[in-house]
């Protein structure tokens, strides 16, 4: 009865929630049924052939698997370490901008790259990093530094992925933190001001602690996508010179699974990725819950 009363009372909110729930059900829950393909040889007609761990064995014994897994972990770790904090910092900085006109302008500019596809972004970055006449190398040359072919350099390409990811997503990802900051009671800042707190102290002792639970939640949820090192991005930035350092699980699965029609094999690799994602989410959730009392739920 209590549930019904709450449903009737907040029906607008529940109606709004129903669409995302439907989306997750259709695109994330129903496809779980297809996981079985990882253990079968798929037949369009007739019975699928149950092959157990065959595709997993092939995957783990493939000579490329170790390097592909290693690349996936390294690129994902780099993104978690270097990309994840940027939207938090950006939201703090945007929050400190006092002119609302300027703040809106900054927000619009930093949100924009999010709406560009990786194909376009790759084109922009390839031009920008061109060793002959790309902006980055022209600036380096101005300071008497040599040109670097970042796109074909095994030492630099992963950093190109990190920085292009920051460029594309930092602005958009900062929205959630900005929303959390907006929820903080202005009274807290006023009280701090009366007590003589500087802007930096207000940020450190009021804003950041209030952001903590949002940061933890976003971090744990992001870990679920840890093994998705960014297919679209890597696919568009990869070239023959740097395959060995940027070929990730997703690009490998795309080539072998989709390109060569080995769908069961591709499903096995995706399932492997999914299992790692779940382990990371649950592991981080319980660790965080134990030490800070905060988690995803």
């Amino acid at each position: 009865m209590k549930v019904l009363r709450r449903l009737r009372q907040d029906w607008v909110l529940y109606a709004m929630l129903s669409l995302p729930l439907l989306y997750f059900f259709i695109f994330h829950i129903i496809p779980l049924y297809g996981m079985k393909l990882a253990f079968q040889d798929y037949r369009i007609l007739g019975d699928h052939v149950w092959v157990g761990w065959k595709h997993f064995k092939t995957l783990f014994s493939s000579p490329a698997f170790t390097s592909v897994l290693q690349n996936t972990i390294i690129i994902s770790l780099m993104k978690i370490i270097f990309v994840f904090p940027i939207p938090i910092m950006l939201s703090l900085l945007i929050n400190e901008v006092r002119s609302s006109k300027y703040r809106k302008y900054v927000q619009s500019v930093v949100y924009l790259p999010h709406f560009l596809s990786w194909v376009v972004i790759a084109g922009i970055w390839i031009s920008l990093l061109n060793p002959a006449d790309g902006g980055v190398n022209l600036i380096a040359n101005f300071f008497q530094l040599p040109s670097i072919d970042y796109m074909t350099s095994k030492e630099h390409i992963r950093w190109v992925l990190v920085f292009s990811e920051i460029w594309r997503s930092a602005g958009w990802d900062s929205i959630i933190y900005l929303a959390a900051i907006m929820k903080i009671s202005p009274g807290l800042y006023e009280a701090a001001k009366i007590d003589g707190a500087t802007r930096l102290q207000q940020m450190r002792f009021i804003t950041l602690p209030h952001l903590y639970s949002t940061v933890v939640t976003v971090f744990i949820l992001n870990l679920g996508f840890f093994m998705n090192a960014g297919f679209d991005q890597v696919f568009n930035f990869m070239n023959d010179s740097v395959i060995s350092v940027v070929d990730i699980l997703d690009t490998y699965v795309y080539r072998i699974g989709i390109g060569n029609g080995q769908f069961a094999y591709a499903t096995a690799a995706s399932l492997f990725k999914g299992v790692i994602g779940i382990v990371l989410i649950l592991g981080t959730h319980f660790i965080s819950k134990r030490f800070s009392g905060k988690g995803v739920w």
Partner: protein
Amino acid sequence: MKKLSLLLIVAMLAMVMSACTSNSNSPGAGQTEPGTTQPDGSGDPVTLKIVYKDEGTANPVSVKFFETLEKSLAEDEGLNVKFELVDLAQGSYAENLNLLLLGGTIPDIIYFQGGDQQIADQGLLEDLTPYIEKSTYIKEIMEPHNQTRMASYPYLLWIKPLAPKAPVVRADWFNAMESSKALMENPTVDNYYAFFKELVEKKPGEGKPSYALTAAGDIAEINFIFNTAFGLDTTWLKKDDGTYEYSKVSQNEKEKLTFYNKLYKEGLLDPQFITKQWDTKEDAFYKGEAAVITGTAGKIIDLYDGRMQELGGDDASLIVLPPAKGEAQGFGATDVTKEARGLAISSQSPHKDVAFKVFDYLASPKGQMLDRLGFEDEHYKVVDGEIELNEKYYSEWYARFWEPTEIQSETPLKTPLLGEPGTESLKMASDYYTEDNNFIIPEQFIANWDAMNNLYKEYSTDFITGKKDLSQFDQFVEAWNAAGGAEITKYANENIK
């Protein structure tokens, strides 16, 4: 919250458990033996579902083409056929087609652009050999490479001229070079080098070109010019002791990469070719940054020619350069294991015979008129008993089905189907035709083959750009063998006859 979490976990577990139970798809309905359908003009029409890249119901030209084809089949052959175009989602055709087929929707006629082998392995594609043997026109228009490919893989049919990539250069720049004559008369690797060097030094286009040659992302396109000259004329090279070795780990390959490295070091090869895509490659050519690019023989080279003349005037028309001459000459051996793309008939179709009759009709003089020339008064006019193709034909029309080298038209053509460079490139492709000795990579080697290819791509690029010294070539060969090369070489030696 706990209850909700529990509920969700139980629901997910239920899904997983049900996912792990055995399942079967019911076989396709309506399988009939060849020859049992009645493709006559009476009664209800036979509906043929066809899935084809870019030919959906949203494309008015496609719709008109298939409607016209329906009428022509009825008038000329008494076939009462209705085509139903299957629309695919936007995106990669091969991927979307695979999803369609794996979802159990199997049209009668399927155009493949890769990914067909797995479908054929499941017995879903019809062996076309008996149909071709009984055909009236198809067997007459098949090119030698089609015949060899069909003998080895009888599921895909794609009667098109050989279309390797041929090098092209602007005529005004070509004529301004002193080394041009020597190159045309004797296109050795040295004469190519001299021509490239002169182009970059003299810069015939007011400070352009910046470099002589560019390519889209890798050396595959450049290989069309030089591979055969370096003795890389087949995928598997026969050594003096009678055994085979993979061409990419041979000494010939090392020599070729040494030459490419020289071109790169001297600025004759685009320093950014690795990050170029097909569009940026063409852009560099049209803007004059690159003097020479390769284009697919035939219509594509004609399109390059048209665009270049639009930008640079009549003098900028294109000249097709011959393949380099050395140990041999050619654009490389043609893969005859199977068609890389083409049309197939579903083995589950109840109308296989009718589908093939459509194929055969399109190979007939009347079918060819429609497929290759387009619609009368729209793409061509018949003037004084001769066919005059118009601008719309050249800019819009392409044959959806067969394109034998010679067109059997009932009415003579006044204007040629292709422009001068397009025709010349096809002639060269035909003149230098040789068959490759490669084979379809068996399923058990596919994952290793991918790793080996990536190894080659990375090493070869590093050798060319100088990041690795060519003295390390043996190190690459060792790594390639360790990645599965030794195993596949053994397989090759056991299977190549």
